[in-house]
């Protein structure tokens, strides 16, 4: 049996229904565990004081925000090439989750920026690129909302997602050209010199894992809802045509 079998709504419902409780439970445990570890069992930073703890929300949210868009790109491609409905609906379901992660990233960043840089917002490249990503999410969701025929909406949003990705990448480099910023470099790189101390890194990795599990649970849950809504719509339409 090939993996594409799961693109059939019924198969997907069966599988996702089985794993969803486990994923949700794991998400709750890891996320809460990671955050508590980070908030209460790590020392304050010598320069930043206790504000550094925002990192346990900020970095995972920021990482997930970009990853969700990437996942939407992949599922959109699957829809365009193989026309699996579940794939299109998964992209639709993921978009609001990604947008909320982006918002969390922006918001925690702003809250962090106030003590660090003395202002809520700076036109720093990374922040700006993030704001643009938020706009892409907005446009993508708005297009889904506006087009009424579900298949046409899936096609159009997929094309938008492809084109948008290319432009998001170009924008990222354009912004670097436009402003060299203040924002932190990569703190979780492989390069040991630049890495944050292990005391911070372990809980950080944990909460990143927690955010990822949370995302997985939410997307499964929302995709299931979307599938049910589509089925409901199909049934209602069938009733009406009868």
């Amino acid at each position: 049996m090939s993996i594409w079998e799961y693109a059939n709504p019924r198969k997907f419902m069966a599988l996702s229904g089985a794993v969803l409780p486990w994923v949700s439970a794991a998400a709750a445990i890891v996320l809460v565990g990671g955050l508590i570890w980070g908030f209460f069992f790590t020392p304050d930073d010598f320069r930043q004081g206790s504000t550094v703890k925002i990192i346990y929300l900020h970095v995972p949210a920021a990482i997930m925000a970009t990853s969700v868009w990437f996942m939407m790109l992949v599922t959109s491609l699957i829809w365009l090439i193989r026309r699996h409905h579940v794939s299109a609906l998964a992209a639709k379901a993921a978009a609001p989750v990604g947008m909320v992660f982006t918002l969390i990233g922006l918001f925690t960043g702003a809250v962090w920026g106030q003590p660090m840089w003395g202002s809520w917002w700076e036109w720093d490249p990374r922040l700006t690129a993030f704001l643009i990503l938020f706009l892409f999410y907005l446009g993508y969701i708005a297009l889904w909302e506006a087009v009424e025929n579900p298949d046409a909406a899936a096609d159009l949003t997929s094309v938008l997602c492809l084109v948008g990705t290319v432009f998001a990448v170009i924008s990222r480099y354009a912004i670097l050209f436009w402003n060299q910023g203040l924002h932190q470099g990569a703190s979780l790189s492989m390069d040991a010199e630049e890495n944050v101390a292990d005391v911070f890194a372990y809980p950080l990795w944990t909460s990143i894992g927690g955010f990822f599990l949370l995302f997985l649970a939410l997307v499964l849950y929302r995709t299931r809802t979307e599938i049910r809504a589509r089925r409901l719509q199909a049934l209602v339409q069938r009733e009406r045509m009868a």
Partner: protein
Amino acid sequence: MKGLLLRDLRLAFRAGGGFGLGLAFFLIVTVLMPFGIGPETATLARIAPGILWIGALLACLLSLDRIFALDWEDGSLDLLATAPLPLEAVAAVKALAHWITTGLPLVALSPVLAVLLNLPAEGFPWLIASLTLGTPALSAIGSFGAALTVGLRRGGLLMSLLVLPLYVPTLIFGAEAVRRGADGLDAATPLALLAGVTLATLAAMPFAAAAALRVNLR
């Protein structure tokens, strides 16, 4: 009347109805400005009141065509004109619906965008006050512009052209109030003038809009 208001609101909130798009446009224009102008916070803070007001104004402007154009195209306006409502009331109700679906959300979003542009904290109350007072005038004037251009296929741009000069007083007083507020000066005078402009517009525009509609329906 109430039926018309409810219908217009419902249409706006329906999928494809355009609610929220004005907001998004406001957001995007404000975000784009720094790309054009450069990222220096000091410059941005200085021009923030103007940018915010112009952004709100453009967002209003771009959603004006939904006041009459769609009703014209599908023939509803012909029917409304023969209905037992005075055309003035139709124009007023439609301007009100436009304000509720566009102006009001803009007011609510403006503080967030003000943060992005580093508007000084003293400016915030004035920003909200001036937009609350000014956006009804934008909708009312806009309904007149929309009525003037309703029969034209590509009326959108022509309407912008007619309406923008009419927006000048509102823009001047509104932006001035915020600018003074942000500088810690007294902003009550421009605000009072703004209120005066708005009141006069609200009183006069439905009649002008109805007259324009009558001509276009011939």
